[in-house]
């Protein structure tokens, strides 16, 4: 049997008849790989919360302080720097726009953070800031899909799907890979949590903002829990009887799926009920959908979910970047910092990796357009942007990488988005070059044919 072409379902199905009933734990919790097959090192992180800032926050307003841009305000960047670049909306010879905020140093580490992120500044010593991230896509949809799946075109498995495939889930009652969303439109869309060619059970499960958080997790109207349980008991009994006749282990798997569905039905309402959280905690996260999702993310990882993608859209500031960044910083700063503090208080930070970042950066040059009615904005900039990491095996309080004086190009310790992916897998105990899946004659992996673990980020 070609193991890579078989699903785990088939694998268990094959063994099932000899082993009797398969423990639910092994079915849902197990990933394809034993950690030992893929890594020569112990995992530092057991779970991931990825705060994805969709739309691409301006690194020049948040983390990458470039005083030189103030001197060049209104003047074009030297042609030697900008030669041969493609942009989404502007021409490369547009004038420089000075940074809109001032920066200060924080904590014992002295990390430099913009004054519009006062809450994050308080946890400066817990995070590692990387100022030299770069990508090769300059439009939202392909760039977001690249960060999330390793390729710019829809169709490859998401990072969370790879992790689920690699090391499985820690709970039987909730999905292993959950997607939470707030803010505006998400350009990359469902391709970012698709399992691609991996088996369907590794799909990211988007929690809905209204109605059932997980589709159909509530009983239909009029069906109470007893009627539901009665139904499940009868389904089980009749399926078991059928199994005795037919002998197909797939029936056993289906029986187990129904039992898991039942458990999910009771676990989900408990999970999303934030009313039992102490007031001090909800206050720490602050108001808004993103804050709610951060808290939900903590509750998910606490209950064993392996990978939580928290998307927050609204960072695409082609016009009025100052106003835009101020508003979004208000939406995410407090909750992002609170998540770190909360995880730390619970002792979860040491084996929970928190990642914060967008799909690319923003230009040092201004964007303005009469046709679009835009002014004082910044266009897409794939050459350099900033991210931060915390927890699970990350060296806290460090700044990695440098850009040139205009914040245009990376000049030290470049970190490609594929390197970010390699590092996340590494922290989970997975070697990115070994976590492969054969599809249509080729071994695919999250990092495509690229990626290096960013050693400087490791504790």
């Amino acid at each position, binding site marked *: 049997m070609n193991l890579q072409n078989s699903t785990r379902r088939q694998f268990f199905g*094959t063994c099932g008849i*000899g082993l009797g009933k398969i423990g639910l734990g092994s079915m849902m919790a197990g990933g394809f790989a034993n950690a030992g097959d893929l890594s020569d090192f112990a995992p530092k992180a057991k779970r991931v919360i990825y705060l994805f800032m969709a739309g691409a926050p301006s690194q020049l307003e948040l983390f990458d302080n470039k005083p030189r841009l103030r001197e060049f305000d209104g003047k074009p960047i030297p042609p030697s720097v900008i030669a041969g670049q493609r942009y989404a909306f502007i021409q490369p010879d547009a004038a420089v726009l000075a940074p809109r905020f001032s920066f200060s140093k924080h904590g014992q580490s002295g990390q430099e953070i913009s004054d519009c992120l006062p809450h994050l500044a308080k946890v400066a010593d817990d995070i590692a800031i990387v100022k030299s991230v770069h990508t090769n896509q300059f439009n939202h949809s*392909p760039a977001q899909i690249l960060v999330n799946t390793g390729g710019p075109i*829809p169709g490859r498995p998401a990072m969370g799907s790879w992790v689920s495939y690699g090391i499985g889930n820690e709970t039987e009652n909730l999905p292993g890979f959950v997607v939470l969303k707030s803010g505006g439109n998400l350009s990359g869309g469902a*391709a970012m949590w698709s399992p691609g060619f991996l088996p369907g059970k590794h799909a990211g499960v988007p929690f809905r903002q209204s109605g059932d958080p997980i589709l159909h997790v509530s009983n239909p109207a009029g069906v109470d829990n007893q009627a539901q349980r009665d139904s499940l008991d009868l*389904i089980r009994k009749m399926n078991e009887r059928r199994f005795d006749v037919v002998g197909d282990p797939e029936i056993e798997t289906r029986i187990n799926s129904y039992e898991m569905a039942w458990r999910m039905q009771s676990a989900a309402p408990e999970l999303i009920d934030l009313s039992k959280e102490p007031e001090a905690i909800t206050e720490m996260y602050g108001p808004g959908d993103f804050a709610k999702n951060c808290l939900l993310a903590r509750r998910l990882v606490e209950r064993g979910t392996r990978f939580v993608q928290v998307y927050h859209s609204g960072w695409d500031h082609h016009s009025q970047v100052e106003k835009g960044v101020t508003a979004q910083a208000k939406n995410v700063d407090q909750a992002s910092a609170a998540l770190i503090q909360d995880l730390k208080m619970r002792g979860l930070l040491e084996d929970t990796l928190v990642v914060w970042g967008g799909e690319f950066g923003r230009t040092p040059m201004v964007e303005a357009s009469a*046709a679009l009615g835009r002014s004082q904005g910044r266009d897409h900039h794939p050459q350099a942007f900033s991210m931060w990491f915390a927890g699970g095996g990350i060296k806290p309080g460090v700044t990695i990488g440098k850009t040139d004086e205009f914040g245009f190009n990376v000049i030290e310790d470049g970190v490609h988005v594929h390197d970010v992916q390699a590092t996340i897998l590494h922290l989970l105990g997975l070697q990115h070059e070994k976590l492969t899946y054969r599809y249509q004659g080729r071994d695919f992996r999250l990092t495509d044919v690229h990626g290096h673990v960013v050693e400087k980020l490791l504790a």
Partner: protein
Amino acid sequence: MVRVIAAFILSTTAFLTAAEPIDFARDIRPILADRCYKCHGFDDNAREADLGLHNFSSATQDLGGYQAITPGDPEKSEIITRMLSDDEDEVMPPPNANKPKLTPAEISTFKQWIKEGAKYEAHWSFVHPRKSNVIPPRSKLENPIDAFVEKRLKAKKLSFSPAANSNTMVRRLYLDLIGLPPTPEQVETFAQLATEKNLPSAVSQTADELLASPQYGEKWSRDWLDLARYADTNGYEKDRPRSIWPYRDWVINALNADMPYDQFTIEQLAGDMLPNATIDQKIATGFHRNTMLNEEGGIDPLEFRFNAMADRVATTGTVWMGLTTGCAQCHTHKFDPITHTDYYALFALLNNAEEPEIEIPDPEIIAQREKIQEQIRSLEIAETQKIDKAKFTKWIAQNTRPLGNWTDIKPRKSTAEGILLEVENENVIYASGDFTKRHVYDLEFDISGIKPPITGIRLEALPDERLPANGPGTAYYEGRKGDFFLSEFTATVDDQKIGFKNASISFGKIAIGSGKVTPEGVFDGNGSSGWSTATGEGKRHELILEFEQPIQGKSLDVSMLFERHFVAALGKFRIAVTTDAKPVPADASTTPNPAVSSDIDMETAYVNIAKEFAAFQKKVTSLEKSIPALPTTLVMRERTSKNPRETTRHHRGEYLSAKESVGPAVPAIFESIDGDPNRLNLAKWLVSEKNPLAARVAVNRAWRAFFGRGILYTAGDFGLQSETPSHPELLNWLAVKFIDDGWSLKKLHRQIVTSQTYQQQSELNSELMVADPQNVLLSRGPRFRMSGEVLRDAALASSGLLSKKIGGKSVFPPQPSTVAAAAYGGTKWNVSKGEDRYRRSLYTFSKRTAPFAAYLTFDGPTGESCLARREISNTPLQSLTLLNDTMFLEAARALAESTLLNHQSNPVASKIFQRVLSREPTESELIDLTNFYEAQLARLKKNELDAQKISGKPDPELAAWTLTARVILNLDEAVTKQ
């Protein structure tokens, strides 16, 4: 215990087979492909140590006193030494290759192969299946399929399982051929046939009926649409709707008509190039228009056109060659004999088409349109009789505007990078080619013949049916279709730049963004201000500029810059100049100018404008609204020979790294194309004797649809890394038979269902679990979960809700609104009403970024790329869907209601059970169901449960039966084809 014995049997078998002579294809090549070819394969650039192991001559070349392979002498073969080495620097594959070392058994196989002469053979799938080589084994069995299958079963000391019982058989046949379960009456009819004659005759006769039913095409088109990556939206960020359902209907019709697969292929790939192509043949080319379109603002549209082309090459490879050409986009294929250049040569074959959207001249709709238009015309004629002459004369006087004197001028030179500017009749210039976000049109005019002074210049933006939305612009995504944006207009006379002082336009509007049109913006040096005519698509517009100083000279050079964050070049236009003392400004009135219009036209305009005809105008407006639009669809249209598109090789497959030009051809390993190497001849080549793969790939796909796994398991991949087929001779036989039968899919399907192999029961026992756990040997019938679409169709059919309407626009069955709302732009999912709520799943609107949740949960496609094989997973989210989704609850309710209505005299539980599962329940099953029903009924009667909420009526019995039907719809048997 069973497992221990199994392990013993398996290892014994392995030991016995090891003594057979070495078969290169079976024993050696898979290992070479997996462990060696990455560095010692087809790719010259990736080759290490200048050593290739992919063919005999390279593998046996002199490497300086020694050879990697010395035929006949394993001891003198370096490859063996390296395989055995313990030295990290010597051993092959090397540790950094991340490939497992060869096992001692594998090494001894290699030794024996070398000893036997190290013979290389062509890969089986690259050799054309020949009739002479595919004679079925001698057997008493009637259907040759069974002879092939029996041969392998016998070799493993197995035999066929008994035939399935009549109920199982009829259900399987219906689900496979039409994707719907049989009704209890159809089950009964089949059982009678089987009793009167025998089961095989009943299958044969019923199969003929089903193959002739229109539901056959609906069922089988779904599989094809997976390959075609069909969807009703564009994909990527904005994922806006598109109209391409006529292509989907074409597939249904073609399959129902049993269009031969070769013709089916040719029409879809190149129907537009067939002589006197019919509208249907054009619609068929929608196959390769199912690629995604990125409408994100700011993208480089040609990069995404390149991506779409790469998708077309990959899809063509998968569907007709079973090859993963995708690897060769970036470099020469490491495992298959497809070079980097081969890939772009194949790319070039497909790369010479325009991608228009066409209207389908549906005669019925045309007749309706004409009827309404005639009605309007006669109303107008009648209304003009009521015109008050005096008022009209006054109106004419008020509306008569001065006309300028304009002379159209013809450029002696017109150029634009990447764009062909052709001068057509009446000095009109038409632009074609690959448009992107920024274009400069340079035009050179001889003005020596015009009597100076020239005071002004006019640009007419003209409509044309070849342009998106009839032009005048070329915008086809993100912006309004047919939009353009003129950023800058500059004029030079005899190398002297000329300024402008006044600008006027007949109409101007900007779409996308909050900007306003400023006619002067076309000469203000700011590229983001200028002229656009959004919402005025399909009409003529003009821009008039007055020169700062009247000009005179020999040569007038005009340069126009078109630039926005999407394609915004002008598609059709004309330039004129005036020698009037002062240019008459552009006419912005929507009323026709009496100075240039006929009296009748003015009268008609008058009744349509003047206030006193308000009642008439209201009538006309409502009639105009009722004119039905012609459906549109996306097609391919080969470029004219004047403007062929160049294809280049792209280094590492990157769009920006274009290298040398590559001419169109099929990969060099195959025989070349007959005739001109173009899309049509590629299509013909794919289904010709020269392509050894098309028929094999097609029959393997059909086999998988019936049995759940192909004869070759790796369905999309027939290349060197593919697994060995389970029944290679059967695969070849079916392929040859398929071609001999005139590429008839219906005959192929008939061939399969009439085999004993297909008609076996699917029960597993412990012996089969060990001997043939995956049913690779076909020791039993197929048994696997149905697709989400079939599940829904089956639930709707057995409950009597299913609509039988075929074709038409896609529909919106119920699903939680949060599914579509999660997509970009918070898409609304307006649930269809009436019959459309219950159409077959094939017609469900397919949105790429928010696929219909129930299908996706059951491993349905997103339509983002060609899908050769769906996963068949089994997850808790599927259970939640079947248990709690409104759609399935509605089916349960309808099942209960109609059963109660029609079958009062029969046991209700038994009847519902039969309608869903095509068999009667056993006694104990019936008891369980009845007990459940009674228990729920008791609770309903005690008001512990609300009957109204469950069944929509305050009827406890109906509610209890609804709950019972819901259980039955959730049984494994209900979701499984067995």
